[in-house]
């Protein structure tokens, strides 16, 4: 398997070159999505960044940092509100350690919505211009596998990947595939193979191309169009698709945009 990816320096070689507009708080998610839409970047809605206490303050901040430092991410624009718990400038400082192609702006200091929108577009474009990316061979592709504990296909695929010399990480869904996706993201996987639970719909993770493989459940048969591979897919077919997706082919969830980022939280909000 020879894959040409994007050289993202100390973050590694990515299979995508994504610009991330990262809202540091729920209050800036809407303006972030407007900026992202205008400049062709990706972003995500979330409800975090403020009203959090205890271990969640460091936990959510680390989680945002992991997103911004992921190998599939090129440049990052952090958009904050100004008065939130996780301050955009502090998050930016933390992110800069692992992703130097990072800037931040603050709604309360940028003239409100219109000013932030205008300045956000300019900064995002400047970031992209200032950081042209070159291609580089990806020699250490890391695949994430998400599955039900009961699904033996994950183990079988893992054996084949091992035999083919491909790195992988496995997360077994406890109650929510999104939590497993988040854990796999933290481990730096380039793409995810999801052996979707029988009662769950196909889903995805915004920064990481996610290949959904169906089961034989009635729900999955009815949603066949939204899966990348049917239940009958062989390991050879799966590995073939891994190679194509790693080389640029978009997955179904990348096209539809389905799948929200689910941040690990341990404490109630205040």
């Amino acid at each position, binding site marked *: 398997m020879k894959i040409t990816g994007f050289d993202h320096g100390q973050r590694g070689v990515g299979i995508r070159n994504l610009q991330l507009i990262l809202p540091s708080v729920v*209050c800036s998610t809407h303006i972030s999505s407007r900026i992202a839409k205008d400049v062709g970047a990706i972003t995500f809605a979330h409800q975090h960044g*403020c009203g959090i206490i205890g271990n969640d303050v460091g936990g959510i901040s680390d989680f945002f940092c992991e997103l911004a430092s992921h190998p599939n991410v090129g440049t990052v624009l952090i958009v904050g*509100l100004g*008065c939130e718990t996780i301050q955009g400038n502090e998050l930016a400082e933390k992110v800069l350690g692992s992703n130097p192609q990072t800037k931040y702006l603050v709604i309360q200091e940028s003239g409100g919505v219109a000013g932030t929108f205008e300045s956000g577009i300019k900064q995002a474009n400047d970031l992209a211009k200032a950081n042209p990316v070159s291609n580089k061979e990806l020699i250490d592709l890391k695949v994430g596998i998400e599955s039900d504990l009961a699904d033996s296909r994950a183990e079988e695929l893992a054996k084949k990947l091992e035999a083919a010399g491909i790195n992988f990480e496995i997360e077994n869904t406890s109650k929510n595939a999104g939590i497993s996706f988040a854990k796999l993201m933290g481990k730096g996987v380039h793409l995810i193979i999801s052996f979707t639970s029988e009662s769950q719909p196909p*889903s995805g993770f915004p920064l990481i191309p996610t290949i959904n493989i169906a089961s034989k459940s009635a729900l999955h048969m009815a949603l066949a169009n939204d899966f990348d591979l049917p239940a009958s897919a062989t390991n050879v077919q799966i590995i073939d698709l891994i190679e194509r997706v790693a080389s640029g082919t978009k997955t179904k969830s990348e096209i539809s945009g*389905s799948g929200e980022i689910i941040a690990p939280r341990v404490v*109630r909000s205040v």
Partner: protein
Amino acid sequence: MSNLSSETSLLTGFPRPDGRIGFRNQVLVMPLHSALCATARSISQAVSGSVSATHDWSGEVDSDFERITKVLAGFAANPNVFATIFLTLNTDNENQIIKRAEDIGIANSQIIDISKVGGLAGALSLGIELAQKFVSEAKKISRVSVPWSALHLGLECGGSDALSGITANPALGVASDLLVELGAVSVLGETTEILGAEHLLAARALDPKVGEQIIETVARYERSINYEGIDMRGAQPSRGNIEGGLTTLEEKSLGAAKKAGNAPFTGVLEYADPAKKPGLYFMDTPGHDIEQLTGFAAAGINIVVFTSGRGTPTGSAVIPTIKVSTNTQMATSIPDLIDLNAGTIADGTQTLQEVGKAIFDEIIAVANGKLTAAEKGGHQEFALSRMYGTVIS
């Protein structure tokens, strides 16, 4: 305002079949699984006049299940919603949420079971078709005169500063008192923000039992935070508040409580529970702006006034949210976030009563159709309040 009485309401709205009244005719696309949120957003972006909610619930049944289903159902059944289009996988839990929304009262609804329409693409095209149909039906309905009791006002503050407690919050209190006097519902939230002032609120209870409930609600909140090993009385005011000039939690809470004016408290509401009769209430909500706003929406609140010292663009898909600035500097530097400036009280150019009356008038204007800054900006933030986090069940 002596000419105002409960007989001469200035409000116009849209009566719903269950007797509640909306001040907007929103067409809401409500996904009941996180994996369906992108499709819901695509539908609402394609159809002008429709809105959607994005959340991270994926059907899991854990300790927060009851809280989450209550909020999703209540939000979908907010009286400002003319029609709700549910996106579902047809699971028992989702059907339970829809049933619960119907029991609260929902003017019009349609269910798109994605497994019966060929998946996400089918749901998208059917959703667009249905949303367009509902939007054009909604446009044909005229407003009618409605009583003051139609108004369920939510009182909120976020990003407080040193002026919050002397300008915007007491001015909002003036407006709230007027409306409560006329027969409206007014709801103060944010348990976090009354810590240290609970005894003052309890003293204003109509019934001693309500006073005890206020004290107990705050004590319960503190116990749940202390359980996490955190002392809220040490963790507040927040850093943003300190930068805004606040020094102690008591100072912040005394200022925050002024939003509720001087009216007596009729009752205490659990998070996302509706008020059943007119009066002033206290609702147990987090201080998290959007969890509070979403809980208000799920409780059937149909207008919110949100005071801010630092400025925030946020809004709700289903509630017009009026922003009142506590200081003139912020109102001028970020004008597109703010509907009214109460900083004039500190400037000495308007009295507290004058700004209170201006907020009262703005509430009526917005109820009658005037768009807020957050509505113009398309703000539709949504958050599910969880008591137990996402990784522990």
